[in-house]
């Protein structure tokens, strides 16, 4: 069964300063549950990453000074890894950690996730602080590539679905 939330597509990305990225999203759930889904490996595996990838490593040592590491694997075998250290844990309102994309190990960012609960809904605000504007922009560009890729993948699915069966091998052969 697919449950479709009414808030789909409502995350907002802002650039609060030259070195920051802000992501805001409201959830119809208590902050404690959002925090649990954000920090429990069995739950993180169900949402983190993106449509075409699987989260093959999800290590979370949730204590100050503890580490985390996520690795995604694409259908073609490509892997991407991220890791970091938890700096502040104030459950369920605030979580601060470092984050390094392993493909670019020099660019360590600091992520601050806050959860503010009001009348059963929770506002999530994630701020990613990079060490330089160049690193911030690099992070945004990587998102652009994957974001665009997903849109193109869906577009391709649509095209394949509408093509005559005899033509499918050319576009959908890898599926």
């Amino acid at each position, binding site marked *: 069964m697919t449950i479709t939330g009414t808030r789909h*597509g409502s995350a907002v990305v802002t650039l609060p300063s030259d070195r920051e990225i802000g992501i805001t999203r409201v*959830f119809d*759930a208590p902050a404690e549950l959002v925090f649990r*889904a954000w920090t429990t490996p069995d739950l993180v595996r169900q949402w983190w990453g993106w449509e075409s990838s699987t989260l093959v490593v999800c290590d979370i040592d949730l204590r100050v000074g503890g580490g985390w590491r996520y690795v995604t694997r694409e259908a073609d075998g490509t892997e991407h890894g991220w890791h970091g250290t938890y700096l502040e844990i104030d459950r369920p309102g605030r979580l601060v950690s470092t984050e390094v994309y392993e493909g670019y190990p020099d660019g360590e960012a600091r992520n601050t996730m806050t959860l503010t609960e009001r009348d059963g809904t929770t506002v999530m605000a994630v701020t990613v602080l990079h060490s330089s504007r160049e690193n911030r922009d690099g992070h945004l560009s990587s998102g*652009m590539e994957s974001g665009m890729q997903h849109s193109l993948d869906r577009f391709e699915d649509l095209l394949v679905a509408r093509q005559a069966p005899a033509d499918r091998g050319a576009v959908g052969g890898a599926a």
Partner: protein
Amino acid sequence: MLISEYDGRVARAATTTDAFNAIAESSRRDILVALAGGEAAVGEIVDRLRLSQPQVSKHLGVLRAVDLVRCRTVGRHRLYRLNGAALRPVHDWIRGFETLWNERLDRLDDLLIELQQEENP
């Protein structure tokens, strides 16, 4: 071209190359925000942002060069206004990142609904 040469070119990219370079400077972003409220003369922007008149004029020159700001002359005054369409490439660039996070957080949203249904059947 060697990657080092390419980096050199990027580092020297003129502020008037495109919208991205033009808004890399925070004062110029402040001017855009000030103009988002409507047309304004240089003096009004100077008052609002507490920058010097030559600074504002210089920034407006850069913004006009990439078409982020347009201007018309009324009597002795030049009135500047925002051309939002020129921000489109910047918006599109961020949108890809937003798409990625939307997909991710939509799945988290679905999971939270499922978890709540399990806890309160």
